[in-house]
């Protein structure tokens, strides 16, 4: 019944997107948007039902080569389907507004690809066998590729698309390898049959490591992230929001699904996952701080948040290894809550960046400034997203990081020796990440919205149309709701976490945390009310004293200040870059003032991704060299090709003759 609803939702989405292609341009966007929202409401409702009630499965026949396909909504799948549905609804709403800015484009293919993208993500988290999984996984990659390729006139977009294409297929190859390895033991493509195949820990570890590498490319863990900071800025913003908010989570899904199948992972695997996650979180946010391009900044911040989710998963894996209840339950729950939280606030931030791009036609934050006056709604929503992503109360980012800290605080004393130290160090890394995220988003908000305009790009800026605001507001409201009332989401996520091997009664372990979250929620509500009270008092006092006097910014008596003399994003990041610049491959170009009356001076800093410079670039160079060795084969010389033909015929003749003799 629940899965029927789920399938009806997918069908509505598909039919709507197919229908729009046949209809005139003017009705395409509204039709698609309505179909997407209704369809995703169905799938979202089905997911909630599956989370609250019994998990269900449905099997139906499919043409060759898929055979019979089983869709199953167990709590893990339902949780991801819910995330996808929520993100998809906001994304479609926002996309309707965003795409109206391209009246010259037919959008037929784009909207169809968008629907396929959403459908394939929903199917990725519900199918249960190798072939269908690989089929929808590839469909997801290819449809998102079409979406990224939207602004194809720009060279940057073409480069990013090729890069994305290659990265996704390396991921595909790794996942395929992992699956084939497992199938050699299990003899079946059914995920359920893998459990038996993974009884041998050494074999399971090898297979899982290969699968982890494949899924990590999709999720964007460092050092597998190279495609991510290129593809996200290149894609139109409604797609960036969906890719960063929702799509990369399917990589996390893959990791969680196969961890669930294997049961207790080996120590080495658990530690590797945790280490990769910690590095992703810390290094990702450091890279984010160094960026000038707003969408690149958000892309690196996605890497950071994937790292935080990974920290939860890694802690949980270590917990399973050593039978540590708090680490398993709260680590996994924190990861899941952060996953849905990140899909909310990162979508919101990417949509905000898109609104800014629509208004100013630049993503360079050094060219923006003072936009809080011209785009008040966007500014408010972007700031809500920033507060959430920086993990500050009373928004949802605080809740997930709070649960992760709880897992470490309760878990560390129960963990023996080395594990305890590992957990404590992880807590330190998470704290560092949190403070750096705050740094990163005070930079983004401060430079973009405060101060004076830094270029004429902001001259005509104004808030976007209602559909875009609505898409963003939906996410912001969800973020505030989770922040102020986290207990229901926690219970749902804990029920998913309870699928994993747990010593004792998971529900009993979760109960005190629900109580804690209840008091946290009350404290946050009090905090909000207290702040509102202070604001009211301020308002009253100001009204009594005759309002606020305004005067020009104090320039130490200098009258010829220009907007270029303001604090820039680079100057804000400078103290940190002085420490970490070497680590981040920050190249600085400086032209010092010369002589007594210097005419010009320049300063320019550019962050390079070290993984790109030292891993991807040499690798690509080597592959190019390798293939250049065979370039003589295809010389373009007709005589040579005729020679190939003759040689082939001669060889065939010899072979046939040999066969008959």
């Amino acid at each position, binding site marked *: 019944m629940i899965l029927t609803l789920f399938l009806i939702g997918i069908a509505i989405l598909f039919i709507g997107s197919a229908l729009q292609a046949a209809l005139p341009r003017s009705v395409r966007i509204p039709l698609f948007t309505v179909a997407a929202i209704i369809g995703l409401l169905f799938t979202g409702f089905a997911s909630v039902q599956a989370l609250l009630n019994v998990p269900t499965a449905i099997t139906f026949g499919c043409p060759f080569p898929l055979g019979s396909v089983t869709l199953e909504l167990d709590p893990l799948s339902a949780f991801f389907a819910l995330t996808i549905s929520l993100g998809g609804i906001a994304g479609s709403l926002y996309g309707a507004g965003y795409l109206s800015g391209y009246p010259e484009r037919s959008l037929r293919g784009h909207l169809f690809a968008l629907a396929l993208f959403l459908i394939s993500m929903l199917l990725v988290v519900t199918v249960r066998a190798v072939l269908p999984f690989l089929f929808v996984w590839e469909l997801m990659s290819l449809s998102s590729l079409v979406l990224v390729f939207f602004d194809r006139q720009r060279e940057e977009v073409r480069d990013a698309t090729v890069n994305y294409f290659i990265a996704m297929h390396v991921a595909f190859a790794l996942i395929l390898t992992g699956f084939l390895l497992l199938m050699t033991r299990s003899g079946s493509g059914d995920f359920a049959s893998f459990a038996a195949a993974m009884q041998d820990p050494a074999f399971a570890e090898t297979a899982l490591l290969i699968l982890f590498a494949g899924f990590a490319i999709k999720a964007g863990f460092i050092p597998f992230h190279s495609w991510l900071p290129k593809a996200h800025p290149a894609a139109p913003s409604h797609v960036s929001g969906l890719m960063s908010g929702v799509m990369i989570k399917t990589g996390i899904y893959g990791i969680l699904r196969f961890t669930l199948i294997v049961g207790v992972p080996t120590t080495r695997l658990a530690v590797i996952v945790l280490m990769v996650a910690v590095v992703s979180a810390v290094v990702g946010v450091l890279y984010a701080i160094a960026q000038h391009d707003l969408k690149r900044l958000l892309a690196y911040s996605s890497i950071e948040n994937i790292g935080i989710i990974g920290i939860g998963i890694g802690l949980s894996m270590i917990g399973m290894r050593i039978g540590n209840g708090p680490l398993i339950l709260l680590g996994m729950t924190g990861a899941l809550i952060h996953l849905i939280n990140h899909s909310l606030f990162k979508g919101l931030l990417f949509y905000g960046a898109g609104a800014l791009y629509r208004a100013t036609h630049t993503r360079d934050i050094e060219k923006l400034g003072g936009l809080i006056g011209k785009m008040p709604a966007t500014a408010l929503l972007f700031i809500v997203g920033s507060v959430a992503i920086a993990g500050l109360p009373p928004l949802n980012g605080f809740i997930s990081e709070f649960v992760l800290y709880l897992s470490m605080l309760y878990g560390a004393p129960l963990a023996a020796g080395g594990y305890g130290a590992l957990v404590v160090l992880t807590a330190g890394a998470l704290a560092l990440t949190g403070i750096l995220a705050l740094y990163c988003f005070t930079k983004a908000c401060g430079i973009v919205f405060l101060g004076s305009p830094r270029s004429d790009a902001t001259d005509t800026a104004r808030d976007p149309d209602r559909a875009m605001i609505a898409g963003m507001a939906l996410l912001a409201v969800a973020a505030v709701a989770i922040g102020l009332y986290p207990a229901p989401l926690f219970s749902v996520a804990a029920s998913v976490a309870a699928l994993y091997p747990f010593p004792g009664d998971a529900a009993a372990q979760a109960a005190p945390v629900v109580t804690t979250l209840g008091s946290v929620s009350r404290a946050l509500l009090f905090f909000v009310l207290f702040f509102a009270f202070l604001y009211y008092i301020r308002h009253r006092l100001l009204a009594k004293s005759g309002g606020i006097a305004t005067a*020009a910014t104090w*320039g130490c*008596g200098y009258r010829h200040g220009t907007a270029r003399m303001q604090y820039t994003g680079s100057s804000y990041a400078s103290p940190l870059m002085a420490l970490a610049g070497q680590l981040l491959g920050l190249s600085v170009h400086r032209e010092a003032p010369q002589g007594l009356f210097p005419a010009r001076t320049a300063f320019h800093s550019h962050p390079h991704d070290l993984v790109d410079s030292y891993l991807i670039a040499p690798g690509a160079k080597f592959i190019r060299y390798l293939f250049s060795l065979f370039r003589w084969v295809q010389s373009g010389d007709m005589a040579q090709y005729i020679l190939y033909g003759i040689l082939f015929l001669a060889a065939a003749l010899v072979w046939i003759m040999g066969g008959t003799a």
Partner: protein
Amino acid sequence: MVFRLLKARWRHGSQAVPDPIAAQVDPMFRGFPDIAKEGTLSSETVALCPGAALSVNPVAIDLGKCHLCGACSRAANSPIRLSSRHHLGQTKRDALIVTAGTSFEQYHARAEKGRAEIRRLFGRSLRLRSVSAAGCSACEMELNATTNANFDMLRYGIDIVASPRHADAVIVTGPVSANMADALEDTWSATPSPKLLILMGACAISGGLFAASPALDRRFLSDHTPDIYIPGCPPHPLTVVNAILNYLGRGI
């Protein structure tokens, strides 16, 4: 290292002036001018004054222009004698003119106190922003000295701050050159109300030696009414401290 420092501190002892309000300055100090009632000023004596502070009929000396150099008091048959009284601060420009027969007590009584709101707000905490509007650094050094270990006006809650946004008063030194006119205006408008304007030194009050210079632009001072005048060239730190304290209702 630390011990040497501590030893030096021990040897310095307490350098603070115990009570800056009651403190007397060295008798050599040239302060308030006593003018004999029946005296007259010769034109030679008037010509001696570098600041054109003297007037003959009636015999008077304008402390807003006077540099307290004492040239007039040393001239032959001069009715002017400079005492060592250093409480010279005033609140009205006209009150700075000392006529023949004016006693120090009369002069001092002319200095007004700030209105009740000012005394309530700033009586226990006043922050000054100093603007050196083409000053020669003498006034600036004396202003600096008001916060040193000796005079230490911080004990009264009066301090000098770095930004006009944090200040309650702007204290101007120097004759206000054209190049500093805009900066002074900006500083004033950047200071939140209610605020005080304090002029320190003969240059700030009247232009002093540079009153006739074409390089000055004193329109700021005709647009805004100063609250406190502190005459001298430069004023003694105790003069500065007492002028402010008197205005705040905390002086003698």
